[in-house]
């Protein structure tokens, strides 16, 4: 589904990604872990198309196509979804309006008719139950005045409604208490499917206790320095990122926050 080859990217003049290689197949869940400043968020942003990061070399193939050539909205319509680390507040744009406009933009792209208001509401309300969200949140402005946990739940609600092919969850666990984390993980797990891949970007192993990845990659200094199964995450939790950094990557020692 996704093949990243020797990807280099900079933010401003600063190189952040220094040769990422990664292959993700449908149905797989990959966790990307790494210390702060290792390039995790930049990788998410490059995949979603945010213009603040510039790709300097390398390629990304998504479903056999050159992903980097597609506009932000094209990527979304072809099934890429980024759950934001910091979901954006948009006063004046209704949550329900955005959900409906997003779903219909994607349906139109796939040649499907737009959903009428009743079918749409039934679908959304069903997904809201899953995320244990109050219906009143539909009629508020996008993320405006939402608590940290509500914002993250709202991201997963959007994902549940849009049913992406490739979901990138950027630090979805950050700022969540344990109850909210369980609800979010529940939502994500319910979206596991054979034709859907997910990338979990996270600093901590905690999220991976609730969402079991198939593969874990460790990103340090803009490169994947180690890949393995779920056990790698446990190893990291025990020994800290210094354990890997020490192995001659030339990157300064960074401890995960406890």
């Amino acid at each position, binding site marked *: 589904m996704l093949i990243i080859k020797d990807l280099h990217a900079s933010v401003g003049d600063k190189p952040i990604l220094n040769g990422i290689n990664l292959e993700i197949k449908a149905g797989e869940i990959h966790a990307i872990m790494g210390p702060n400043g290792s390039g995790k968020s930049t990788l998410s942003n490059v995949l979603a198309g945010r213009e603040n990061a510039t790709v300097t070399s390398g390629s990304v193939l998504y479903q056999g196509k050159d992903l980097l050539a597609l506009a932000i909205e094209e990527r979304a319509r072809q099934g890429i979804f980024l759950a934001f680390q910091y979901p954006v507040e948009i*006063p004046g744009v209704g949550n329900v309006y955005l959900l409906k406009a997003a779903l219909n933009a994607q349906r139109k792209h796939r040649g499907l008719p737009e959903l009428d208001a009743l079918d749409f509401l039934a679908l959304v309300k069903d997904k809201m139950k899953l995320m244990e969200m109050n219906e009143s949140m539909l009629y508020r402005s996008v993320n405006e005045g939402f608590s940290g946990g509500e914002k993250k739940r709202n991201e997963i609600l959007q994902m549940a409604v849009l049913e992406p092919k490739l979901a990138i969850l950027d630090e979805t666990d950050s700022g969540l208490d344990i109850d909210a984390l369980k609800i979010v993980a529940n939502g994500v797990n319910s979206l596991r499917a054979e034709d859907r891949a997910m990338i979990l970007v996270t600093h901590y192993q905690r999220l991976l206790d609730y969402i079991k990845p198939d593969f874990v990659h460790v990103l340090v200094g803009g490169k994947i320095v180690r890949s393995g199964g779920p056990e790698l995450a446990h190893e990291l939790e025990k020994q800290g990122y210094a354990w890997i950094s020490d192995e001659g990557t030339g990157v300064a020692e960074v401890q995960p926050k406890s």
Partner: protein
Amino acid sequence: MSAAIQHYQSEFERVAPLLPWRDSAPWHAWRQSGWSRFAEQGFPSTRHEEWKYTSVAVLEKLALSCTPVVPETMAWALLKEKSVLPDASHRLVFVDGVYQPKLSSVGELPSGLRMGAISDQSARDSIRLQGLLEQAQRRTPFAALNAAFMTEGAWVTADVGVHLDEPLLIMYVATKGRRAMHVVNAYEAAAESTFAVVEQYLGMTDEPYLVNEVTGVTLEQGAKITHVKIQQEGPRSYHIAALQALQKRESRFDSHSFALSGALGRNDIESALVEPGAAVSMRGLYRVAGRELQDFHTTIRHDSPDCSSDECFKGVLNDSGRAVFNGKIRVAPDAQHTISQQTNHNLLLSDQAEVDTKPQLEIFADDVKCSHGATVGQLDEEQWFYLRSRGLSSEHARTLLIEAFALDIVTGIEHPVLRSALESLLRSTAHV
């Protein structure tokens, strides 16, 4: 005497015999006095502080006709589709400055509430208008010109305790170019009375014209008036207006201005809070594109203790559009416990657009809560990216964000019918 003033002088001599109450000596004196004030001041130039960013030099050269002419017959159906309140039961319609009884429908008003064209008043009854308009007609040189030429307008009065929920509609339609229309509006709310009035100005000609308008508002104790003014003027139009409100004890004046189109618009809006407990809310939206200019000069006078004012103006500026916001708040020495809030937010959508914004606070009392803030910014890149990352096209996302910024200004309108009418008007007229 400049050529422009000479032109209006000869217009004044020519149209005097055609104007309402021409045989009334007090009106003759009134018009003469207005004319003298105008002749003395002339057209303002950008050397005047109050007109620093707004040049009327082109207007001055236009030599517009001030002679009232009977407009061509028009069907209500044509106006109805452009009306912000197509189903209003009480409406007055003026075309090219002339009252149109056939297009109007005063309907059945509650007893104690009157609405009508000023030209329908007898000379004797109309004298009271002078008191209502005097302050406003002294505000600017254009307002003085209005005092000399005023031909038509709407007059609404509510007796003690009278309430009307349904908004009254007043439409001013311009169909002919090269003309100046000098119109007035007068609104009087007696103690504890309430009504809402919507003025809609529609330009239906691409030729240049001037709407020179003056409004006087009086609110007695506990009265409440909601005033909405919508400018949808023609592409080469000039709309120049002065509004003066006088607020007594515990009265409430809600003013909403929407300057949506027109080559040049200038509004001087003032409310004087002269007795304790009065409250004013002054809100507005200006939208400019092409080479349009909208200028709002507002003044809120806290002349008495325990009054409050809440002011918010927003601007959306595209292309080479320009806007001016000058918000003066004056708190008199004995106006203690004043609460006053002022904001002006501008969204610049192009590199050529320009806004000049100036808060002007003159506070002479010490126990007050006054705040003000102005911002000038562009579309938020993060919000734009967020919407596009959900599959919305870049155009759709942009429109949505601009709409959200602009529509925020109507959320303060308490009246549900008005609020939704204005929401759909703003959506349907968005030209960016």
